[in-house]
């Protein structure tokens, strides 16, 4: 067992090396990505800061990610609440089918969306078509997360609120919603991240305003832009770590509030 463990650790290090190299070359004073390192610089970050096209792409990506997070979380709340509270015919299969985009190749989703939007509906491609597409792929994650959150709410808490004179609506507002809030925040963060990172659908559906991954794709034609990409990547790693920490914080708080044992699951 011991040998296997060391081997696994070494393999993990090897796997993660590319990510560890991002900051290394982001601060390296050379346009060529190669060892030995030639000196320390903030230059690539300054270059990022001084590129208006990147700013536009980032702003666009953020707008899409926020909208996607809100929409898919709202849909997730409706679906999860329906799943937790009501029995209806074919409930299991319907809730199952909602999960399909979770495992479908995004290139297929992208192509069929493109066909629907452009060829069948004859709409203009815009930021909102990307939002719709991202909502499609994020909703299954939101539902999965919120399902867990709603199932963890003890029904007797809702009954107690009714018993104390609240209506079903005010019970939802005063009791249910605060209790599933950690799940809601998790769902928002994860949809946000997925949308922010997604490339291929955005590539197909993007109109005149590229998202950040699409913009990066464009940069890759110019080798001298690589260090800037590394700098951008470093920022994204940092952002990822922050988002993960926030998500984990809320997950744990949710577990603690619901009085459950922490089983250490991540999502």
């Amino acid at each position: 067992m011991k040998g296997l463990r060391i081997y696994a650790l070494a393999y993990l290090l090897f796997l993660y090396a590319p990510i560890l190299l991002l900051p290394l070359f982001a601060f390296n004073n050379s346009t060529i990505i190669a060892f030995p390192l030639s000196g320390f610089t903030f230059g690539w970050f300054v270059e990022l800061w001084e590129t208006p096209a990147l700013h536009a792409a980032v702003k666009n990506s953020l707008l899409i990610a926020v909208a996607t997070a809100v929409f898919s979380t709202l849909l997730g709340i409706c679906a999860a609440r329906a799943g937790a509270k009501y029995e209806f015919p074919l409930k299991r299969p319907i809730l199952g089918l909602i999960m399909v985009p979770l495992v479908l190749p995004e290139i297929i989703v992208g192509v069929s969306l493109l066909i629907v939007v452009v060829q069948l509906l004859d709409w203009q491609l815009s930021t909102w078509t990307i939002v719709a597409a991202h909502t499609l792929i994020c909703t299954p994650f939101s539902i999965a997360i919120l399902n867990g959150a709603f199932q963890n709410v003890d029904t007797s808490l809702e009954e107690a609120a009714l018993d104390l004179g609240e209506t079903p609506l005010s019970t939802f507002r005063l009791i249910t919603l605060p209790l599933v809030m950690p799940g809601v925040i998790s769902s928002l963060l994860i949809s946000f991240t997925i949308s922010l990172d997604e490339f291929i659908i955005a590539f197909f559906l993007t109109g005149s305003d590229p998202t950040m991954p699409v913009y990066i794709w464009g940069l890759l034609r110019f080798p001298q832009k690589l260090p800037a990409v590394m700098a951008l990547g470093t920022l994204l790693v940092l952002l990822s770590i922050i988002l993960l920490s926030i998500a984990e914080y809320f997950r744990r708080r949710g577990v603690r509030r619901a009085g459950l044992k922490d089983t250490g699951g991540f999502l």
Partner: protein
Amino acid sequence: MSTPNAPPLIQLSDVDKYYGDYHALRSVTLDIEQGEFFSLLGPSGCGKTTLLRTIAGFEDASSGVLMLGGENMKGVPANKRPTNMVFQSYAIFPHLNVFENVAFGLRKKGLSATEKDTKVRDALAMVGLDGYGDRAAHALSGGQRQRVALARALVLQPKVLLLDEPLSALDKKMREQMQTELRRLQRQVGITFILVTHDQEEALIMSDRIAVMFEGEIAQVAAPQTLYRRPASQKIANFIGVMNFMPATATPAGGVVNVDIAGLGIATLDADQCPGGVPNGAAHVGIRPEMMSLLFYGETSTASVAQGVIEEQSYYGDMTYYDVRLEGVSDPVTLSMKNIVGRPVLERGEAARVSWDPRALVLFGN
């Protein structure tokens, strides 16, 4: 207790409840008086919680009438009924502190902040939680949660307080303490309490009256001492404590019943020793373990006496339980002796003389 001619606070007539094919309540008819401490006692799945939730308004009766304070409760939702519930899980709102939990039901009462504050403070004082208002819900022990749940319900001064196995999650010492406190509280506030429990001891200690339920039906409604001494059937007798049963032949003879107990001879019983009705022919007599005694070294008794051998002995500290095989009786009988100073604890295999008073016998039809 209410004045004798006041109408019952709660009246259930022929209440049935189905879940699909499952018949959870079978034509339940029951009156509960103003100010009573009433218990619904039965094994799990007997329908006692369903009955409580029907009174609370969380379940609709499939048929039958539920009157509460003279009003038909048909179609009245839980939030409009003058009942409040203490849930088995206590259902303390985890995101609110103790004060906010207790004040929750006062939201829509249109009280000033000062009035609300006074009411919550009084309710917390009543359950012995003065100064706990700022405590977070998750920082409470089991006993404290239960007190918060009580305060939260009582602060609304409901006509009926419903308690769904409120003590089952507590450990033994805490449970005994809360039993005493709940009784005291009920005497103090004078509100009707309806307690659901599967613990016969708890029901006996706390209640003014007890309804025993089996399989959705009410089997007997009686005061604790009546229920224990004069159970209406063998099933009830077995559920409420322990009883020895012996086959017998009953012959009613004007006012009394002559009983021939297999192996132990003849006894004459009063009609009131047949709470389930006077049988004729094959029957069973029952006797509680504490109603029989071991006779030690030369003790005599004016009561009936039989010879036997001790088959099993369990020393509980305050009591010792013996299983004694009596001559001529097929099954061993269980009896209990208080361990007082100077009284020895007999061991397995020792000879024993057992005495009992025929007035302690209860007669059941087969």
